[in-house]
């Protein structure tokens, strides 16, 4: 290459090198700008993120407004920012508070709050953002006396930005205000950001307010509950003391009256007097007992001594107790007891109290020569005790309130009938504690009343349970014999005793029995034996009866998916019954089972009720 040639090439190359350098600088500048912009975006995102987190984490109002002010001031790049907000005062009005960021409190201490000037007012009205590049040049600025602009000593402000903080409802909570000594500092971006923060702030403030209200409400509720408990405790103590104080003198009255009666025969007048004293003392003791009972019931402190009880015995015992007073009034007392009325599950003393209360009520409100009928019968799967009288009856207005406490037809001081009005209320509470109901009916005043107590039947296995001394042994329920010949029953129970007992029972009346000790075995047996019915325990290990039945019901009909099923379970609450029905059982039978009832249930389920004779 000649020197000329080389020089020419070098010159061209170096000229180009300058252009390349310029291109590189442009690229570098662009890269830097992109990077700066990215960094700025990242910074803002971080601030917003932090703000969101900070606002969400503060439930304390004061800390929250400070966090809002700090975050907003940082985001806008303002030299200082303030948040003026309204707070409700106890008189129902509001007063204004403020927080500052970027400036000490003293910097504004002398100037008072922003007033309703053309610059500030729109923010407090909630009219949107105000952004001013040079506040001194703004026509809204400096119109008000006495300062006509910024007061002396005010921090220098050229750039101005403000945004209202509003609830979703539109109600203005306050305003965020920002200033900078340099002009034209706030950009459209700061404006967008600050609107976002104001919205976040409003939500956070609302949350803090709701939290505060909820806290107060919870505290008030806690205090009220504590007070109720305290009063309840005082009442219990008072009643215990009262009953003791009332019974102590009664004890002496009754004791002496009975002692005197048992000694030398007094004259007829004295004797009648002593008898009256004793009767009234006993009545008084009963009143005290009622009062304490009611208290125990309403405070949930009554405990039932639950056992197998024959209502037959209970009714007879109660009738015997009341018979003297009925005879004294020459009332006709007629007792009818269904021999098939089996035992119930309950507290014999409390049940006797129920019957006695109803009977004594009937005696009390039935005039001389009147009539009282007592009927105990089995109706479907429950027992019904009906006590009806030919007494004074109940007006339709009073009927709905008969079982309310302290309620009597006549509460005037001249009322004819004594008592506290607690007896029927106690009846209702005790019957309900036994899972039963009580209702009253009366054709009207002077036309007598009828009380019906309904108690669920609890049929027990004959060899099981305690027997109450008053009520004696339970009688066997007698039903027509049933045959299950030609019916295959699948019995699923993990307890071998239970399986065997059911097997014996079912085989005896001709059923074909297939046994399964688990859900898995049951599914196999179902496929193989194709039973007409399954009896299934609920509480079993691994898969319980509910799960088993759901699996069965998922099968096609041809594979036994629709086989009738009886749930046999010790869970006897109504929700257990619902759960069994939901799982697909047709019938829910509570343990312990009544063999006859189970057989009838099976027969009716498979639609094959037949008498053994036929």
């Amino acid at each position, binding site marked *: 290459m000649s020197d000329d040639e080389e020089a020419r090439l070098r010159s061209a190359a170096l000229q180009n090198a300058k*252009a390349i350098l310029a291109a590189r600088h442009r690229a570098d500048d662009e890269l830097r700008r992109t990077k700066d912009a990215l960094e700025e975006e990242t910074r803002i995102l971080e601030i917003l993120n932090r703000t969101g987190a900070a606002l969400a984490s503060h439930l304390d109002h004061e800390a929250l407004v400070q966090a809002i002010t700090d975050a907003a001031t940082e985001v806008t790049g303002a030299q200082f920012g303030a948040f003026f907000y309204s707070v409700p005062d106890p008189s129902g009005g509001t007063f204004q508070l403020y927080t500052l960021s970027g400036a000490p409190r003293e910097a504004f201490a002398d100037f008072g709050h922003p007033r309703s000037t053309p610059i500030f007012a729109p923010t407090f009205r909630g009219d949107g953002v105000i952004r001013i590049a040079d506040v001194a040049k703004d026509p809204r600025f400096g119109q008000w006396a006495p300062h006509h602009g910024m007061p002396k000593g005010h921090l220098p402000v050229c750039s101005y930005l403000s945004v209202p903080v509003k609830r979703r409802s539109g109600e203005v909570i306050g305003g965020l205000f920002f200033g900078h000594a340099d002009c034209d500092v706030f950009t459209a971006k700061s404006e967008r950001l600050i609107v976002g923060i104001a919205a976040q702030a409003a939500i956070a403030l609302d949350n803090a307010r709701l939290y505060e209200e909820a806290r107060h409400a919870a505290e008030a509720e806690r205090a009220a509950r504590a007070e109720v408990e305290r009063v309840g405790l005082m009442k219990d103590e008072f009643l215990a003391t009262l009953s003791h104080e009332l019974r102590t003198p009664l004890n002496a009255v009754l004791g002496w009256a009975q002692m005197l009666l048992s000694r030398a025969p007094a004259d007829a007048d004295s004797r009648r007097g002593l008898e009256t004293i004793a009767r009234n003392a006993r009545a008084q003791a009963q009143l005290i007992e009622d009062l304490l009972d009611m208290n125990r019931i309403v405070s949930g402190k009554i405990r039932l001594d639950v056992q197998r009880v024959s209502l037959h015995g209970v009714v007879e015992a109660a009738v015997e107790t009341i018979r003297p007073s009925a005879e004294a009034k020459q009332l006709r007392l007629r007792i009818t007891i269904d021999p098939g009325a089996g035992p119930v599950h309950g507290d014999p003393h409390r049940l006797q109290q129920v019957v006695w209360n109803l009977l004594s009520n009937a005696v009390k409100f039935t005039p001389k020569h009147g009539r009282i009928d007592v009927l105990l019968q089995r109706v479907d799967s429950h027992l019904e005790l009906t006590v009806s009288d030919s007494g004074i009856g109940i007006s339709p207005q009073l009927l709905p309130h008969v079982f309310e406490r302290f309620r009597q037809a006549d509460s005037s001081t001249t009322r004819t009938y004594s008592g506290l009005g607690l007896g029927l209320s106690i009846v209702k509470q005790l019957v309900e504690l036994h899972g039963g109901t009580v209702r009253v009916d009366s054709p009207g005043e002077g036309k007598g009343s009828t009380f019906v107590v309904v108690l669920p039947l609890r049929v027990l296995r004959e060899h099981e349970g305690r027997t109450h001394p008053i009520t004696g042994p339970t009688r066997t329920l007698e039903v027509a014999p049933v045959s299950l010949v030609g019916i295959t029953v699948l019995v699923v129970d993990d307890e071998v005793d239970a399986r065997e007992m059911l097997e014996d029972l079912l085989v005896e009346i001709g059923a074909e029995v297939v046994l399964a000790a688990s859900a898995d075995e049951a599914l196999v047996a179902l496929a193989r034996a194709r039973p007409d019915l399954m009896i299934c325990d609920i509480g079993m290990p691994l898969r319980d009866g509910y799960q088993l039945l759901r699996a069965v019901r998922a099968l096609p009909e041809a594979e036994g998916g629709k086989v009738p099923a009886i749930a046999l379970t010790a869970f006897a609450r109504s929700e257990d019954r619902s759960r069994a029905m939901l799982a697909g059982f047709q019938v829910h039978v509570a343990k312990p089972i009544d063999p006859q009832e189970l057989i009838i249930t099976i027969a009716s389920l498979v639609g094959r009720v037949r008498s053994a004779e036929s």
Partner: protein
Amino acid sequence: MPIPTEPIGSIPRPIALVEAIERAGDGLDPHLEPLYLDAIRDTLSRFEATGSPVITDGEQRKFHNFWTYPVHGSPLTSPEGFKIPFAAGHVRRMPQLTGGPFRYQRHADAYLAAAKAFTRLPIKQAVISPSALSLLYPAEGIPDYPREQFIEELLSEHEGEVRRCLELGASSVQIDFTEGRLAVKLDPTGELLTRFIDLNNLGAARFSDAERKRIGVHTCPGGDRDSTHSADVDYAELLPSLLQLEVGRFYVSLAGERERERVLAVIREHLRPGQLIFVGVIAPIDPRIETPDIVRDRVIEASRFIPLDQLGTTDDCGFAPFSDDVSTSRDTAFSKIRARVEGTALAARVLGME
């Protein structure tokens, strides 16, 4: 894992094609099309036969050479560009730009698209560097077409060409940067070389990290008619700057270097993580065909300086960067390539990589 090995690109055109181009007076004559297709098909098939895992179309259609193919025949160029003198005594004259806007007349991705029809092996595509084409713009400037605008348009054209090659599935895209040593020769201060690197980096910056891993740069002292234009420039002055290029692959001529170990030491000193160095183990301008053993020894030599997971092999240069170069036969070229492939595999075995 084998040691990667790739060709640089060009293979001498079949004599029939070279003569037909001469008779036509212009490589772009449409009547040459069947001959071009034959040449491409034959080149790819012979390339496959060498066992080379990555092949090229031998740049059969690049006219007139690896440098000016994008602007050949452009109405905005004149043949009055500078002359590149080669050590063998001949001179290649470059075209010169006479106006804007600057647009490539053709792009290398068209060659890649055509080659893909004839082979299933991975294809590498070589493109000319923006820095080489920047020399088209004359020293005295062009009225109404400022240098800055030219540089911008050059970068856009380059980016489009590389991007389309990547999108077509090129296993790698190699930017031919043979003017690197020439830049040091023209401007011993290194300023020109720095600007060349800047320009090529501006191009590379337009690609993602993943894309840049598939982009490489090739440098050599120029190879034409078995001679070079800048072998007298010290490699040590070029390599540190070269390794600053933001690409993943470096194809460095080495077989023809006088002090290979010194060059390797410079590479070791400036090597950055993630860079793949393909060292030249075949010297195309040397008429002797290397044996696989020679290649193996050159690879083992390089492995003492470059970590094995960053080492690959290549040829020092294309076998015919200029379309009319018939100083090396096609047979010789493919024999040398086969030696590279076999020798590299031998080295991998010796180094315990297979």
